[in-house]
């Protein structure tokens, strides 16, 4: 490697690019599992069972009230003292998934609440079962109304993946790899601006992609609630 | 007296008022009728300068409304306006809704304005709703609140912009009753309305709008029963 050079090299750029890739992968994987868990929690809270509603609500409240850094180290040291230490990267993904699930759950509940009760009644009146109604009426309408909030969460998640560095997870994501380069070439401002540009582009990319998707929906007619 | 001369107004490429001339005397009730998009509501907004004009002149009691040196807020104190969407202030109770402008704009003292508010709310039949928020009132009640709010400023003129259009049919009557009361009291009113029977009963004169011009204006009863212009006949034929 080029540990001896004190200037920004092509390899450094590749390291940052790889870091951006890791950031992306972390976001996709924990975003996927987080959304899945969050969906189940949000659905569970919509069932009308008061004890389940408050139990899951407690989980959401706790996750949303504790800094992510602390959740990272707490989960990691919990695994250690429980006798099941796993590598920091995996434990980081699990923590991120649980963390974002709490936020997704709230969005899912908002989506379910956004479906007018009359529409559910209409669907049931057509002879649909609970699950058919949920699958074919509630989910499509609800998804449409909360897609922007969900996108916001995924962007937040991408930025939060940078905190996985506190676990010393490897391979390094974007911010950690930038730091590695900074330590060597001592050009923090330029490198950090570069890293910021990477984040910015990725955020922008996701935002535009979702907007495209939304417009393609909108052209198929809007739901009037 | 309100004098409107050659008023023109465009929104972008769309010309909504194409040279309007109209005079309204003190104590008169004038109804503006016509299809939607014919420019009736825009004209109301131009009379109290909520909208600017592109050409022409609007004069209220001899004051040029659109002249730059005119203090528009002073002028608007003389002209109460009530909108189609009631526009009650959602964060204030009925009483505070009515008392706000007399207290802050006219600078009357607090106790006085609260009493004034109670008086005007009672006048429109909301004497028992003083401490209710708009969200706790029906559409008809909110609209009557808006009327009371405008009246509390003791305006010389009332501008009414389709005040019954957003109401459920069964609530239209109560608002029209309130307006009848005002007409009997001799308040000058310019009302944009789709309630032709109401216009015929209450208005002194009616002006028929079509595509930004006044096609016909005349005494309410004769214009509605016996319209002279083809467009007017067509419109009234459809709506009655």
């Amino acid at each position, binding site marked *: 490697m080029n540990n001896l050079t004190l200037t920004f090299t092509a390899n450094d750029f590749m390291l940052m690019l790889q870091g951006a890739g890791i950031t992306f992968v972390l976001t996709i994987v924990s975003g996927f599992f987080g959304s899945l868990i969050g969906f189940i929690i949000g659905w569970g809270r919509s069932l009308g069972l008061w004890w389940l509603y408050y139990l899951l609500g407690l989980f959401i409240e*706790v996750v949303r*009230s*504790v*800094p*992510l*850094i*602390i*959740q990272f180290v*707490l989960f990691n*040291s*919990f695994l250690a*003292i*429980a*006798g099941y230490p796993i590598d920091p990267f995996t434990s980081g993904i699990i923590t991120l998934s649980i963390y974002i699930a709490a936020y997704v759950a709230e969005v899912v509940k908002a989506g379910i609440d956004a479906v007018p009760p009359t529409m559910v009644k209409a669907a049931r009146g057509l002879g649909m079962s609970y699950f058919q109604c949920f699958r074919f009426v509630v989910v499509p309408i609800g998804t449409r109304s909360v897609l922007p909030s969900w996108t916001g969460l995924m*962007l937040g998640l991408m*930025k*939060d993946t*940078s*905190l996985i*560095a*506190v676990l010393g997870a490897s391979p390094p994501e974007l*911010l950690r790899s930038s*730091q590695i380069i900074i330590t060597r070439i001592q*050009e*923090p*401002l*330029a490198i*950090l*601006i570069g890293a*910021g540009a990477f*984040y*910015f582009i990725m955020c*922008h990319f996701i935002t535009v992609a979702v907007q495209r998707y939304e417009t393609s929906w909108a052209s198929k007619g809007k739901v009037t609630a | 007296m309100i004098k409107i001369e050659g008023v023109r107004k465009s929104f972008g490429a769309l010309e909504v008022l194409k040279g309007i001339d109209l005079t309204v005397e003190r104590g008169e009730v004038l109804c503006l009728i016509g299809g939607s998009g014919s420019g009736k509501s825009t004209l109301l*907004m131009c009379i*109290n300068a*909520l909208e600017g004009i592109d050409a022409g002149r609007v004069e209220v009691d001899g004051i040029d409304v659109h002249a730059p040196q005119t203090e*528009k*807020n*002073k002028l*608007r*104190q003389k*002209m*109460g*306006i009530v*909108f189609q*969407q009631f*526009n009650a*202030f*959602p*964060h*204030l109770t009925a009483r505070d809704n009515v008392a*706000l*402008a007399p207290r*802050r*704009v006219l600078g009357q003292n607090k106790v006085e304005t609260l009493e004034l508010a109670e008086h005007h709310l009672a006048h429109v039949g909301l004497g028992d709703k003083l401490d209710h*928020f708009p*969200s706790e009132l029906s559409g008809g009640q909110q609209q009557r609140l*808006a009327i009371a709010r*405008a009246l509390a*400023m003791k305006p010389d003129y009332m501008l009414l912009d389709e005040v019954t259009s957003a109401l459920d049919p069964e609530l239209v009557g109560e608002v029209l009753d309130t307006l009848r009361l005002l007409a009997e009291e001799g308040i000058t009113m310019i009302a944009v309305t789709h309630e032709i029977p109401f216009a015929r009963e209450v208005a002194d004169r009616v002006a028929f709008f079509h595509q930004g011009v006044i096609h016909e204006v005349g005494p309410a009863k004769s214009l509605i029963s016996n319209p002279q212009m083809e467009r007017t006949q067509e419109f009234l034929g459809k709506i009655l």
Partner: protein
Amino acid sequence: MFDYRFQWRVVWKHWPELLEAALLTLQITVLSVVFGLMIGMVLSVWRKSDNKILYWFTATWVALARNTPALLQIYLAFFGLGALGIHFSPYTAVLAAITFNNAGYLAEILRGGMDSISPSQRGAALGLGMKPLQMYVYVIFPQVLKAVFLPITNQIVWAMLGTSLGMIIGLQELTGMTTFLQSQTFRPFEFYLAAAVIYLIVCETILIFARLVAWRAFRW
């Protein structure tokens, strides 16, 4: 469940340090929200400005604050600005970065709040003869306040959680102090759990207080 023996006494022994650190966390939170709100108000007004420079300045601030990680913003304040001859202490760097971040989000919240007020409310207020300032004070702002109250509460909570990033550049706020203490005592789980509980309590206090205020002030 496992052969681990929890030792809470050592946490209890360091309770005063944790409390002091928690107060520092609160201090940064309050300052960053107050400054953030002030800047955010200016930004939200500039955003509506016809002046192209003000508009782009605001748009850039908001986009940068929202589209890059807060940790990167802290790094920039702490390490990056050194290249320009600006040297911040960890405290100042965290306060500056979180304020920068808050201002960006709060500007958008305030803008959304303004946009949520129907334009016809302006017409109604002006129609009663109010001057623009009176319209804002008595009609628009009270309604904006309701619209932005909950989002701002969430932003306060977020700002507090965000100050925990100070740990990474060596600031001894609650998370930083916890990290320091656990490294001295080798009791990470106990210390981090204690810190988590403190954060939870502070958060809940903020939220309950906010709900109380909202319940009193926004009965409409």
